[in-house]
């Protein structure tokens, strides 16, 4: 116990010293590209980054074009982290890579900001310190404009992006939802929906509009990011990238309201994504598997300089029709729910509590891989748990995060879920992250 505490203290010290060193080494004016462009401090657009405030949502809807165009719209990001799994399995060390080590989780370069009066970009290139691989990350290129109709502003625009929901302005969907930072080495439940599994593999083209700062609508279409769109998946692992058939529609509607001079805001929305996916990405002919995701989400924010409260909830129901793959069932269903409530004091000290649950019908072929640690002896995708996160932002561009994930169920059971005696709680994770933007 003492040894464990000493080891954690040492690693905590390493991360803090490294954080302060890197932060101090950056020039005084080294702030992210968007902040340089607008002149605003980070917390004008973010509750705590990357979660957007109403100002941040407006900035994004206006195509990242507000403010003064920069000659070099560059920014950087560094994530140093340490993951500690409650009970790693030494017999399967590959399932717990770098567990207990301080690692450079990610290092990113952004080209982000205003390109012209109506065109802006958010592009990210990331080095993965675990896989030692560099590849394209999130991309969202936009054209945006505004017209006034009946004395009400209509913002409209077009987007080209490479990750479903990365273009969304609310922090409910998979791309920008809670947790905003998480371990890339911890074991994760083996079931996930299509909408959260296509990042950096697809090209999304869409049109959106916000009328009277109230009614938001978007229609996008996703296709495989190949040929003229191949830049959107540069450097990714082509052997596992998704291959989609044709164009796959995404529809998004949301109603939002801001009051109290923008200090309070609320949103309720829904979205739908249909995906036809080839089971073998090297053979893009023949039958496909069909995924239909329907989501309902809501968000509330109370934002002042001193107190910030933010809540999100998102549910997804996915139907999976196995028209090409051979699974135990001809079709399966997944139901996912994620919720979070967070509070920040003085824009510096934060606490977030999240809940997650994914459930569905059992499918032995799909989920019972027979593997220790990651398998599901019941063939059930059911997993659930809580996330408690503490945040400290000593500077506006430095974030220290301590996050604890507790599983109440993992891959179908609380106890012995893999048939090799492993319990859900063995995957509980303590995660320490130093997150720097510059």
């Amino acid at each position, binding site marked *: 116990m003492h040894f464990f505490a000493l080891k954690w203290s040492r690693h905590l010290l390493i991360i803090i010293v490294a954080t302060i060193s890197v932060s101090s080494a950056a020039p005084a004016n080294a702030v992210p590209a968007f902040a340089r462009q607008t002149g605003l401090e980070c917390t004008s657009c973010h509750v705590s980054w990357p979660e957007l405030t109403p100002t941040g949502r407006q900035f994004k809807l206006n195509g990242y074009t507000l403010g003064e165009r920069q000659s070099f719209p560059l920014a950087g990001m560094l994530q140093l982290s340490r993951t500690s799994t409650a009970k790693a399995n030494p017999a399967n060390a590959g399932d717990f890579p770098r567990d207990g080590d301080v690692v450079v989780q990610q290092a990113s370069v952004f080209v982000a900001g205003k390109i012209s009066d109506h065109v802006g970009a958010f592009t990210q290139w990331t080095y993965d310190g675990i896989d030692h691989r560099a590849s394209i990350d999130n991309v969202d290129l936009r054209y945006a404009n505004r017209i006034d109709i009946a004395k009400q502003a209509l913002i409209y625009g077009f987007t080209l992006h490479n990750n479903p929901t990365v273009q969304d302005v609310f922090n409910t969907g998979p791309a920008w939802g809670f947790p905003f930072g998480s371990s890339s080495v911890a074991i994760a439940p083996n079931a996930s929906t299509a909408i959260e599994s296509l990042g950096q593999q697809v090209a999304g083209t869409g049109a959106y509009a916000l009328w009277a700062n109230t009614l938001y609508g978007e229609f996008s279409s996703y296709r495989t990011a190949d040929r003229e769109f191949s*830049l959107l998946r540069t450097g990714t692992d082509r052997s596992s990238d998704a291959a989609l058939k044709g164009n796959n529609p995404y529809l998004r509607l949301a109603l939002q309201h801001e009051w109290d001079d923008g200090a309070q805001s609320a949103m309720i929305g829904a979205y739908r994504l249909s995906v036809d996916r080839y089971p073998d990405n090297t053979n893009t002919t023949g039958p496909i598997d069909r995924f239909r995701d329907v989501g309902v989400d809501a968000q509330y924010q109370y934002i002042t300089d001193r107190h910030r409260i933010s809540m999100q909830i998102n549910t997804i129901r996915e139907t999976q029709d196995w028209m090409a793959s051979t699974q135990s069932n001809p079709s399966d269903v997944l139901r996912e729910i994620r919720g979070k409530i967070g509070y920040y004091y003085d824009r510096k000290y934060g606490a977030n509590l999240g809940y997650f649950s994914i459930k569905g019908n059992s499918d032995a072929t799909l989920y019972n891989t027979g593997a220790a640690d990651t398998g599901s002896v019941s063939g059930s995708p059911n997993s659930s748990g809580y996330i408690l996160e503490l945040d400290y932002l000593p500077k506006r561009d430095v974030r220290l995060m301590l996050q604890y994930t507790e599983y109440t169920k993992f891959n179908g059971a609380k106890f012995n879920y893999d048939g090799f005696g492993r319990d859900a709680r063995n995957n509980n994770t303590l995660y320490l992250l130093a997150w720097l933007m510059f």
Partner: protein
Amino acid sequence: MSSNFNCRRQVLKRGAIALLSLAAIPIVVLPQNAHAGSAAKSDFHYQNSPHDGKHCSECTAFLPSSQSQNSEGTCRIVAGPVSPLGWCMAFSSKG
């Protein structure tokens, strides 16, 4: 090994070229445009009076008039003339 290394170099090279090309567009192709913002005042809850003692002349986004301190200026965020005594929800203190 050598083939993987070359492939990784190629990927890194392509990515670097893509990012630098995108970064270079504003410098090479497009003229420097006006600094004033283009967003609707109503979308930012702009008002012509201070809010809790905060006002535009203290905001980092405010661009003061060259004529006098009390004249209307402009803003990097919202479109149109902006009162130095005004306020909007994007307010970011110079202090």
